[in-house]
């Protein structure tokens, strides 16, 4: 009985941590993966439908809300939605004003998108862990992991986006040659040590997106695992642990969104600076 419980618990955890994967299986062709082994076998050319769906949904929700607020934005007395939206915008403006020292009017919207998108995706975590897998199970989908930020692909994907922006703005501000020169001549300002400098700087550059992606993923994934473990407890014990953990996660959710945004802004600010 204990062994059975253990197996079912392991199965439960694995089930909840498996994404709904669509890809080309070596044997089954283009299909939804029905086991995590199949999903692994699909290799790189597969896509997590749940991650994509929920993240795009959240992004669209954010843009729709803010766009709606923007269309009726008045300079007079703002209404409820406009108030909330303006609060977020002011928060982001303060953030970029204090950490971003370059000249770029796009930094505000970039930071806003990052912050609100990550915040909304993280917030999905506060929904009960069983609802959506069960619901989609009834509809015939084997897996459904609704929190996109617990998927390393999503967080790294965004981090890569930030990384590309760092490269783009570095080249735009300093020129390709200037950027290359900066990579080759810092920290040791001599051509003799250029290869060493290059290695150092490129590693330093690559560490930025990786640390961004993994930090968010780690925090969210760990939190999700704890939620799932709590869900395995007897029903009368669940709320005693679930409620404090969820309340704590309100903090984690916003904090992680804030950290990701702030660090992105800091990296972009560094990309705008001449050394």
């Amino acid at each position, binding site marked *: 009985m204990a062994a059975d419980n253990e197996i079912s618990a392991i199965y439960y955890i694995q089930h909840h941590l498996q994404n709904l994967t669509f890809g080309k299986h070596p044997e089954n062709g283009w299909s939804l993966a029905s086991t995590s082994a199949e999903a692994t076998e699909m290799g790189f050319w597969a896509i997590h439908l749940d991650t994509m769906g929920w993240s*795009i949904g959240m992004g669209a929700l954010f843009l729709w809300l*803010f766009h709606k*607020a*923007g269309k009726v934005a008045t*300079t007079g007395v703002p209404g409820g939605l406009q108030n909330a939206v303006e609060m977020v915008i002011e928060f982001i403006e303060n953030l970029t004003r204090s950490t971003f020292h370059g000249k770029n009017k796009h930094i*505000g919207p970039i930071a806003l998108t990052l912050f609100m998108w990550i915040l909304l995706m993280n917030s999905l975590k506060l929904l009960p862990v069983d609802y959506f897998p069960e619901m989609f199970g009834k509809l015939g989908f084997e897996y459904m992991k609704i929190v996109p930020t617990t*998927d390393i692909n999503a967080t790294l994907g965004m981090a890569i986006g930030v990384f*590309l922006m760092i490269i783009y703005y570095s080249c735009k501000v300093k020129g390709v040659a200037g950027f290359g020169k900066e990579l080759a001549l810092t920290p040791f300002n001599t051509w003799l040590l250029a290869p060493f400098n290059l290695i150092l700087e490129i590693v330093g550059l690559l560490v930025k997106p990786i640390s961004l992606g993994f930090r968010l993923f780690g925090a969210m994934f760990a939190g999700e695992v704890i939620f799932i473990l709590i869900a395995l407890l007897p029903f009368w014990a669940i709320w005693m642990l679930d409620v404090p953990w969820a309340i704590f996660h309100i903090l984690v959710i916003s904090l992680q969104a804030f950290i990701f945004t702030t660090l992105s802004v800091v990296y972009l600010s560094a990309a705008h600076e001449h050394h």
Partner: protein
Amino acid sequence: MNINMTLIGQTIAFAIFVWFCIKYVWPPISNALHERQKKIADGLDAASRATRDLELAQERAEQTLRESKEQASQILEQANKRSAQMIEEAREQARAEGERLVASARAEIEQEINRAKDDLRAQVSHLAIVGAERVLEASVDEKAHRDLLDKLAAEL
């Protein structure tokens, strides 16, 4: 924990969201925000300016009031002085006039007395002459004399 196409999908989604945000979401809200900030700042400015103006106006009003009060009291004082002076003058004039009148009346009376005296003297002398004439004319006639004396007595 598979790294797959989702990575690229997320990057593309991110790029699209950022683009949309830059193009359609950020500008209207940000503009409204800054315009309102400007409006509020302007309003506060205007309010402080108005307060300052009000203070100035009050000060000016007070000053004007003070000046006019001073003027009024000055005018009043002058008027009082003037009236006292006028009364004094009038009194002086009246006394002088009175004195003059009394003097002239006295002089007239004197004159009148003198004239009366002169008249009386002339008449007395005339009477004396007439009386003497009558006395001389009627000395022979006792009776006539008698009448004459009676007449003389009546005339006196």
